[in-house]
Structures are given as structure tokens and as C-alpha cells.
């Protein structure tokens, strides 16, 4: 009952298609390299002027290895680090997570809590930045208008990131 009310409420306010969850899909490509390490990935929402609205996820090495704590290389996700990472006390609940294997990863976010809650109508970008040890770095920016339209938005990286998709859940 509550869910129905929420959905109805949203559609009244914003005219958004009927949904109360958002899906962010990030494809981490499989690499054919001698030394492979899973990339550090940061996903955030930014204004068109690159100022940060909110963080969605940061995937990095949790804990400590012989080479040091995972936080040591967060600065290599360099735009994220500059725009927001360096201001955060890591780990951040609900944002920090372990690195992911190659494949398609889906983050499901509610529209009534988390980064998309209280997002004012307007132009934004979903930014995904990946940085890989002994590898490259790539940033994919996917512009979107909030509230989302029914059709999914997507943008593809060329090397370190595959397809990045933002859509309303079915």
C-alpha cells in the first residue's frame, strides 16, 4: 500500500514514469593482459559544471594487503578524488564497496532515499570513472535530465569501461 502511494505521489509531482527504483548499470570489460587487477571505480551524480551532487558508489580494495591499505590508491580515480573523494572520510556507508570482477554490475537505487531522493528537476550527469593498477583510466559521463524519461540513457567507454546505463526499473 505504501509503495503504491509513493509511486502515485511521485507521478503527481514530477510526471515521472511509474517506478520507484532507478538502475545504474556499469560494464567492466574483460581485459586480455598479463597482469590484471580489478579497477577502482567511482560512480557519482554531478551538475553540468562538474560540481558533485552525490556519490553513488566507490569500489576499491577493502582492507590491507602487503602493499598497503586500499585507500592508498583512491587518488588514482583522479576526477572523483578531486571533486569529492578527498573530502570524504572513507569508508562511507552505502557507497564504499569492494572492487568488482569484469562483467555487468547493477546498482538499484530507490527514488525515495539515497542519491536520487530530493533531486531537483534539471540537467545532470552520471559520471563513472575507472582506474586500474598497471592499466589505464577512463571517465564516462552520461548526461541526463531528471526526472528520467521511460527510455534508458546510455554511454559507452572505450577501454576501461564498457556500457554505462541509467534507467527506470521495469
Amino acid at each position, binding site marked *: 500500500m505504501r509503495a503504491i502511494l509513493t509511486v502515485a505521489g511521485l507521478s503527481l509531482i514530477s510526471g515521472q514514469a511509474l517506478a520507484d527504483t532507478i538502475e545504474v548499470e556499469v560494464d567492466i570489460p574483460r581485459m586480455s593482459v598479463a597482469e590484471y587487477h580489478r579497477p577502482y571505480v567511482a560512480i557519482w551524480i554531478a551538475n553540468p559544471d562538474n560540481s558533485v551532487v552525490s556519490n553513488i558508489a566507490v569500489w576499491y580494495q577493502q582492507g590491507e594487503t602487503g602493499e598497503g591499505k*586500499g*585507500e*592508498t*590508491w*583512491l*587518488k588514482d580515480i*583522479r*576526477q572523483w*578524488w578531486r571533486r569529492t573523494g*578527498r573530502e570524504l572520510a572513507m569508508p562511507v556507508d552505502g557507497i564504499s564497496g569492494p572492487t568488482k570482477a569484469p562483467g555487468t554490475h547493477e546498482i538499484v537505487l530507490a527514488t525515495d532515499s539515497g542519491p536520487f531522493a530530493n533531486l531537483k528537476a534539471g540537467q545532470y550527469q552520471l559520471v563513472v570513472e575507472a582506474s586500474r593498477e598497471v592499466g589505464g583510466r577512463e571517465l564516462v559521463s552520461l548526461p541526463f535530465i531528471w526526472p528520467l524519461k521511460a527510455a534508458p540513457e546510455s554511454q559507452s567507454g572505450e577501454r576501461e569501461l564498457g556500457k554505462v546505463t541509467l534507467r527506470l526499473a521495469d
Partner: protein
Amino acid sequence: MKPTFFKSCAVALAALSLAGNAFAHRAWILPSSFTLSGENQWVTVDGAISNNLFYPNHVAMRLDSLSITAPDGTAVEAENTVTGKYRSAFDVKLEKEGTYRISLGGDGYNASWEENGERKRWRGNAETLKTDGIEAKSGVEISRSVRRIETFVTLGSPTTAVFATEGTGLELKPVTHPNDVFAGENVSFQFLQDGKPAAGVEVDIIRGNDRYRNAENGLKLTTDADGVITFTPDEAGPYWLSAESSGQSSLNGKEINLRNSYVATFEALPL
């Protein structure tokens, strides 16, 4: 007007005017990282006076005057210090969040005079100037020189406490923080002379790896009325900045020539 590397005629002219200077030795210190995350990180720093940036191919930097300042203003000791033939190196442990200043330099005097038909040259500080009785030498010419060779590294978010003016010579004050420079974006630095905005100071900026270029492609700028220069590094990489000014200083009521120099190393990251 915003000067950019490789894109402006003014730069080409500046490069020509620099040609006479092309083989000047350059003093620098270069940290292994400028920006760090996590906690208890280390940087290793090289220091040399060389012909190319940043290749130690002339003489090692002397580290006698080295001082390292933590973000909270406390002094940090260099570790694993070594001075080789062409370069010196040392490690710095970063235990506090913020910007560290790694600095060399000094405030000293140069003197020259004739003695028994021979030209004598002397270099020292305010104290040895007295103890060596330099001012009493007949026909002595004394000049003062205030020098700084610096770099900055940041653990976590950049801070500005280490840029507090010391009030002597040329100093850099961030408008853009030197650990927040990105290729393709405007960068502004302010220069202070004896703690006040230094107008009309000439500043050279050269990207590292000039060894692999046929032309230095440097940028020659002059500070505006507020002591500020603004430029856009078109390419990512380590950069060498050198500023000089001259003026007068007084020594026991006598006017003497004063030369100030300032060198900093910073990096521009790719967007």
C-alpha cells in the same frame, strides 16, 4: 587574455627571447607523488641542478637548507637522505592530512673585492658577513640574495597553512592550489615580495621532459598589479616554475643590490 602553451604567438616570441638562456642550469626538487590518499604515506624526493627537466645531469642539490613543513606548521625530518653525483634524494613521511611544503633556500650575501691585485669572491650569511669582516674589505661590493626552491605535496584535501608568508623574498601564494592543477584549466598563482603582492615579476614556466623536445616551449609571464599570473597548461605533466626579481636592500644603512629567486615544481594532471 589567457596564455596557453603551444597555442599562442606570444609564447613563440617568449621562447625566442629565452634562447640565450636555453642552457641555463635549473634547480629543482621533484616528489614521487604530488597527491596522495589514505594514511601514513611516503614520498621520495629527488633534487638536482640540471640542464634538463627533470633529469639529473649536472650536479646534485645540496640539502643543507632543507626544511619540510607539515600541514599544521610543524617541522618534519627528511629520512634516508642521500647525495650522489648528480642528484640528492630523501623520503618524507606524511602522517597528517593536508598540504606539506618541501623547501630549500636561504637568505645570503655575495661579496667581491680586490686584494693584492686579485679578485676575491665570498659567499655567506648575515653572521659570517660580520665574523669574516667582509664589510671592511676595501672596495667591497656586497649583494644579498633570497632564494627558495620548493614543492608541495598533499595527503587528502589541499590546505593552505604552509603558504603563510615568511615576509622575505619571493613567495608563492595559491589562487589555484599547486596540487590542484589540471591540463586545460586556468591556473592562477600569486607572488609576494617581502610579504606583499609582487607586481611586474617575470615568471618562466616549463614543462618537464624537455630533453625529448627540440624546443623548450616555455611560457614567460609577468605578474599583474596584484602579483598574479594566469595560464593554462595544455598538457599534463610535471612543470617547473621560476620567478626572479631584483631590488635594493640596506645593510647597516648602505644600499646594496638584492636578488630574489623562487622556483617551484608542480604537476598538471590530465582531465
